[in-house]
């Protein structure tokens, strides 16, 4: 861990100003991912702005019947919030499926959105990685890529986004609120927060230098049954190989409105309009839904060790839809 200076910010605006004042400054909130990476010098900030005591740690009712979640609400608190459990069980389940009790007590809403990939080669500074060291190459492409993405990848990077929470938020059409060093605020739909790797895998979000996430708002819960399913190697304390966040509404024996987001398979929380379109109108029975799911992800591409994720994503989707209508 390289030496750094440290300051504790007193307001979101002051934090953003401080972050904007010096290059290579990072915010630290939960720190569970940032310190993990700083210890092995994947992250090497020269200055840390501690935003833990900014007071952004409340969940509030939105005017529209939704919720406003402060960026510093801890994962465990968000999962346990009665309103989330009642109205957005999908989000609660996703959060609780992530990490461990200890990590969820520390990890924050804003930090979770920005957590970085678990790609083994990204984590190892002695290996090529276009995300960590642009232009150095991608060791995962021809290497061991069991945990890597099958959609949304590029020739530069096949890393997967590891979050569970963000996948649920993607299905819920969350909006991310930010403040810039100049004091400007903006609202970013979660669909637009993360960007695909393309030729610049080091750029992971649309956030500008120093821009601070202050809150996430959830629109009122959409109609339908909410299901989050995480498929992983261990029964707990493991990242998703595939996860599915589904909100499924049935009308007249057929699938009506449906929102499907996926984790573990893409560089960002993944949603594909074509997939949702294909499921809409399908007869709401086990066999039909499994059959419909089996034909999806036609454009997915494995890289060897992760080929199985294509079948796994289809099968998990089928199972989740079947569960939702059961």
């Amino acid at each position: 861990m390289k030496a750094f200076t440290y300051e504790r910010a007193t307001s979101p605006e002051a934090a953003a100003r401080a972050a904007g004042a010096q290059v290579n400054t990072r915010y630290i909130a939960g720190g569970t991912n940032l310190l993990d990476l700083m210890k092995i010098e994947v992250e090497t900030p020269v200055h840390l702005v501690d935003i833990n005591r900014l007071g952004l740690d409340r969940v509030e009712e939105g005017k529209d019947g939704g919720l406003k979640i402060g960026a510093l609400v801890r994962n465990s608190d968000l999962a346990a919030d009665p309103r989330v459990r009642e109205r957005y069980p999908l989000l609660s389940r996703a959060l609780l499926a992530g990490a461990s009790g200890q990590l969820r007590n520390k990890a924050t809403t804003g930090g979770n959105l920005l957590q970085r990939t678990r790609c083994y080669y990204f984590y190892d500074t002695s290996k090529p990685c276009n995300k960590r060291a642009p232009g150095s190459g991608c060791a995962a492409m021809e290497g061991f890529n069991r945990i890597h993405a099958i959609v949304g990848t590029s020739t530069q990077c096949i890393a997967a986004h590891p979050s569970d929470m963000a996948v649920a938020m993607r299905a819920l059409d969350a909006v991310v609120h930010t403040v810039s060093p100049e004091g400007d605020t903006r609202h970013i739909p979660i669909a637009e927060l993360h960007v695909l790797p393309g030729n610049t895998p080091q750029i992971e979000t649309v956030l500008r230098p120093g821009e601070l996430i202050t809150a996430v708002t959830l629109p009122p819960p959409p109609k339908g049954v909410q299901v989050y399913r995480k498929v992983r190697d261990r029964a707990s304390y493991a990242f998703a190989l595939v996860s599915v966040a589904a909100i499924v509404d049935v009308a007249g024996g057929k699938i009506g409105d449906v929102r499907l987001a996926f984790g573990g398979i893409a560089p960002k929380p993944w949603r594909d309009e074509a997939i949702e379109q294909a499921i809409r109108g399908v007869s709401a029975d086990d066999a039909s839904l499994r059959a419909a799911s089996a034909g999806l992800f036609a454009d997915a591409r494995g890289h060897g060790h992760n080929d199985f994720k294509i079948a796994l994503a289809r099968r998990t989707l089928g199972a989740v839809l079947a569960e939702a209508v059961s």
Partner: protein
Amino acid sequence: MSSSDERIFPARRDFLRSSAMVAAATGIAGSAVAYGAANAPDRHAPGTRTTQVRLTVNGQSHTLDVDTRVTLLDALREHIGLTGSKKGCDHGQCGACTVIVEGRRINACLTLAVMHDGESIVTVEGLAGNAALSPMQAAFVRHDGFQCGYCTPGQLCSATAMLEEVRAGMPSVVSADLAATPTLSAGEIRERMSGNICRCSAYPNIVAAIKDAAGVDA
């Protein structure tokens, strides 16, 4: 460091540590131990950024002048001398470092000491308060909830705080009904304790110990 420093330094440290122990043993409320005096010049070498931080650990106040890079875990182990909290992976992947900060269990390895200025921390050394063993510690002994003992402090802090989480109504991913108040069961304990790896694999006994300490039959 000069040779004279080498002779003096450990002695000074010993004095500081023993005074802390005396203070703790006599139960002087609010007694504070300053560790800044123990900071030899070498730890203020150019390029090393230090910050003063005050931590209340197991009821004892400690003021440290530490490198900003020092994790809460290393502050406890290497600066305060409370080595009960363990470093198993240093990356939040094993849970051996679990301590209770402001009432909540966290991985002490993945947080900086400076981030906890003014906060209260309970480590395995403080779980029993004035008793010899806390009910959870006693249950771990009774049920053989450990073998090598290295993950044990983390398991104990985790289990102690976990029960509070259940009492506070926090659900887990295996809670069948998220909206309902969770009830402790073996399955709930296993899931909630999965952030604490035990390679000796005392899991069945850990679950039995926690059930015993919590007074649960299921």
